[in-house]
């Protein structure tokens, strides 16, 4: 875990502990933040440097079956964006879907030390953990796809709610997942079973099931809260990307009825329609979304901002990917996972002169600028869907530097801006303190990672030291030092050491009898034996189980606890 | 007088089961050194089951035993051979920028080998 270390004289931003740009020392020992270290401890002179906890990415796509398909399908994007090996680190390739080693090292060189893969079918859990093994430096976990799970549907359809909850806990535990994830609930059954159809509204019937998305979503919110998970159900709403989807999004949030729920990449769900036109271009309804989130402390969201340039749309929302393929042409990957999920992948380029793309870019910024609680509207581009994580420094600059934002706004499709309120928000600029909230403290708190996102005593010693610079993009693109678990990984912008990182997962308790319900379903409908399904601990060389709360405590929204 | 035929390489379950004995085992070598040929072609060339034929490509040549297949199963002019050391002898190293040598549908010259010529 490295020798004791004292970081001297840095300007510290630690919002979780109310520290706002105070010059002070930070001490590290055995991988943790401590009060003090002996005088002979190694020192880093941080004079003139900004000290923050390591970044925490609450929603990205970095490992697992669909990510690997997305990698494989784009050799042309790896060719000119390479990661050279050093004496101590492995080589790799980049593009919007980097190789595992490049992913870990690049996150580290942005000052990020934790990232959550946001969509893994249970059947892909083992694969995902294998990739995590080869994703260096960062700690990581994954959200497991349960919103189109046919056994859970059956239990729900038959009203067996207690078994439903135990089955959900079983799935989280045996796949070593971090949180339950819903993606376009009901959509897969329509896509795979109904000739590539899709869900259009919360009250649609889901294929052959006597269920609606409304009932499915409500049941998962209920169950996840009852289980006291550190992160609640993580929801990718129906109708992503469709004109007028804001109504679906608002209705979905209302379904929570005061219970915790996290809305993924909410930018993609904030679109209105021109009044009176059913098939119009989308418009921005960021104000309605922001207002709802601002006034409902049980709800949290990550933005899913769009950045211009290359992206890869990769999603468990297969009908959406097909729609994008019909727009973009080129390559299309679809991958169905038995009883559990769908998946689609389309390389996509966001262009500043294209109306819809410019609108999406603007809505992302609007949501940030309209947010009144940075703890609950946190940073993401839904990497690599809205843009690569390598664009984070630029997005930070857009939030911190209104002059820069104005220049950028001048270069995009102006008609799109006409349908947003972005021009009215010029006065708003994020401070370093707020950036530290939306990229670190906030995501850590929403994830229930009590040892992450802050620099208080006992926290994981994941620390980033940036050189202060007026150009915030430059500042956040290359921290001078990155410390992971107390070890100096990056020093003077160069790798000094390699590091494995941990897998973070939950293990909620369940009644073992639930296996007697699940096993017969496997015998009938899976092509893998029940006995071979659960992922065993050998896939977790370094890991940490994040405890679930007592069910009663789950009722208190974490975001509301400390405004 | 050699004649041109099309050689299809492939796998068979017998080759597969013999493979697990080990590739230096007699059964595997037996399976991979027997070429299947249309019975009408065989009759025309004066070949019987177990007769030996020489196959030749610009790359190399191989002597194999032949075995008859009915026309409905294997059309005239087509040969089938399980992959192995002998099919290798006939394949070219050029992959045309793909990594894959052509191993199905090779144009091969087929020539009966007189019985006394064999070991």
């Amino acid at each position: 875990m490295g020798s004791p270390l004292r970081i001297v004289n840095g300007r510290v931003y630690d919002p979780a502990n109310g520290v706002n740009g105070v010059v002070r020392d930070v001490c590290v020992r055995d991988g943790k933040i401590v009060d003090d270290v002996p005088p002979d401890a190694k020192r880093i002179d941080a004079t003139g440097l900004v000290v923050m906890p390591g970044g925490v990415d609450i929603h990205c796509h970095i490992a697992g079956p669909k990510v690997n398909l997305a990698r494989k399908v784009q050799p042309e994007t790896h060719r000119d964006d390479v990661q050279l090996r050093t004496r101590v680190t492995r080589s790799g390739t980049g593009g919007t879907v980097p190789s595992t080693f490049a992913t870990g090292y690049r996150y580290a060189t942005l000052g990020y030390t934790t990232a959550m893969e946001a969509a893994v079918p249970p059947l892909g859990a083992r694969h995902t953990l294998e990739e995590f093994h080869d994703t260096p430096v960062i700690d990581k976990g994954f959200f497991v796809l349960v919103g189109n799970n046919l056994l859970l549907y059956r239990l729900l359809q038959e009203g067996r709610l207690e078994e439903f909850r135990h089955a959900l806990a079983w799935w989280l535990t045996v796949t070593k997942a971090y949180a339950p994830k819903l993606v376009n609930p009901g959509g897969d059954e329509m896509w795979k079973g109904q000739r590539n159809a899709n869900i259009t509204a919360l009250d649609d019937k889901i294929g052959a099931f006597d269920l609606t998305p409304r009932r499915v979503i409500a049941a998962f919110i209920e169950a996840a809260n009852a289980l006291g998970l550190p992160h609640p159900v993580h929801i990718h709403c129906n109708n992503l990307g469709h004109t007028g989807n804001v109504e679906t999004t608002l209705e979905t949030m209302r379904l929570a009825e005061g219970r915790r729920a996290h809305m993924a990449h909410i930018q993609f769900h904030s679109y209105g329609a021109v009044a009176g036109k059913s098939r119009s271009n989308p418009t921005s309804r960021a104000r309605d979304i922001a207002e709802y989130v601002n006034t409902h402390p049980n709800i949290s969201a990550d933005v899913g901002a769009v950045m211009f340039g290359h992206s890869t749309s990769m999603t468990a929302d297969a009908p959406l990917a097909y729609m994008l393929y019909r727009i973009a042409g080129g390559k299309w990957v679809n991958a169905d996972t038995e009883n559990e999920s769908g998946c689609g992948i389309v390389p996509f380029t966001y262009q500043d002169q294209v109306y819809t793309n410019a609108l999406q870019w603007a809505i992302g910024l609007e949501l940030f600028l309209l947010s009144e609680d940075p703890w609950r509207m946190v940073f993401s581009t839904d990497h690599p869907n809205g843009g690569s994580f390598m664009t984070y420094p630029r997005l930070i600059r857009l939030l911190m530097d209104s002059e820069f934002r104005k220049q950028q706004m001048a270069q995009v499709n102006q008609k799109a801006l006409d349908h947003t309120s972005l021009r009215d928000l010029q006065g708003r600029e994020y401070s370093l303190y707020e950036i530290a909230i939306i990229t670190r403290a906030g995501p850590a708190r929403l994830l229930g990672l009590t040892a992450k996102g802050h620099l208080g005593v006992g926290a994981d010693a994941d620390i980033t030291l940036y050189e202060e610079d007026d150009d915030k993009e430059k500042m956040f693109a290359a921290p001078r030092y990155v410390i992971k678990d107390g070890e100096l990984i990056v020093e003077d912008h160069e790798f000094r050491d390699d590091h494995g990182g941990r897998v973070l997962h939950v293990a909620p308790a369940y009644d073992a009898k639930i296996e007697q319900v699940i096993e017969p379903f496997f015998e009938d409908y899976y092509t893998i034996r029940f006995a071979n399904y659960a992922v065993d601990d050998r896939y977790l060389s370094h890991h940490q189980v994040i405890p679930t709360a007592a069910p009663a405590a789950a009722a208190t929204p974490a975001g509301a606890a400390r405004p | 007088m050699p004649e041109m035929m099309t050689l299809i390489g492939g796998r068979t379950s017998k080759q597969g089961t013999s493979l697990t004995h080990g590739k230096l085992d007699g059964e595997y070598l037996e399976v991979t050194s027997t070429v299947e040929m249309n019975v009408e072609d065989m009759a025309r060339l004066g070949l019987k089951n177990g007769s030996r034929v020489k196959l030749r490509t610009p790359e190399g040549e191989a002597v194999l035993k032949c075995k008859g297949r009915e026309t409905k199963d294997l059309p005239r002019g087509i040969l089938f051979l399980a992959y192995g050391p002998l099919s290798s002898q006939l394949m070219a190293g050029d992959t045309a920028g793909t990594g894959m040598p052509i191993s199905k549908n090779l144009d091969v010259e087929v020539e009966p080998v007189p019985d006394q010529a064999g070991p």
Partner: protein
Amino acid sequence: MSLALTLHTVPTVPLEAEVLSPARLAGLSAPEAAKLTVVYGNQRADLGDFFKVGKGADGELHLTGDLARVKRVGMGMAEGRIVVHGSAGMHLGTGMTGGEIVVEGDAGDWVGSEMTGGRITVKGNAGHMVGSATRGSAVGVRGGEILIFGNVGNEAGSGMRRGLIAIGGDSGDFAGVNMLAGTIVVLGRLGWRTGAGMARGSIISMHPAELLPTFAYACTYSPLFLRLCLLHLGRLGLPVARSQVEGRYQRWCGDAVELNRGEVLLLDSAPGA
């Protein structure tokens, strides 16, 4: 810039020598040029470990020897002229934007792949993927000219968007596959499946060919652009016959699986044509 390099040691594993490019050698003395870095397998080496560097007579880069295992000659070059007195290895002139390369002997695979300008002339044969897109990319050559006097392998001009590829001999399979636009002239015979998936563009051959079922015969005519194109190729030394310049061509439209705006023109051999 005026250097002549002679291969004195034939590499036994691939040698990557993109430094063999006019701009990289410009202004260097012979000893300086000999110290340039090449990649020999997995290790660095000096250009001088393989080439004797002497002064050239003119402003060109002259390479002499069997460079079959020397890759990337003229890769990415933007100006100047390279003459290879011998054969060249893979990736000759890949991604070049301007200037000229002449190879007296044969060239390996990926000649001029994804180039955007300039001209490559190979007097002998070239390998596969002449002027092609690399794997995964939809777009190959975006401009410039590639002239191969001999035969070429498969996938010449794959994904081509603009420019001219002319082949004096025969082409392999899938010439002009997935072509977006541009022109490919094959004076010899076409291989199989020419123009598969082409959206736009023209592929010309002087011999009859069986095309894919998704190409449809349209008419027989004498297109003006082709006359000009062939005269141009004749001036560059390709053996273009008068009968070809003045000939009538069957126009086949395709590929119907794609946009169907491409064409394959086959010299009509009918008497009196």
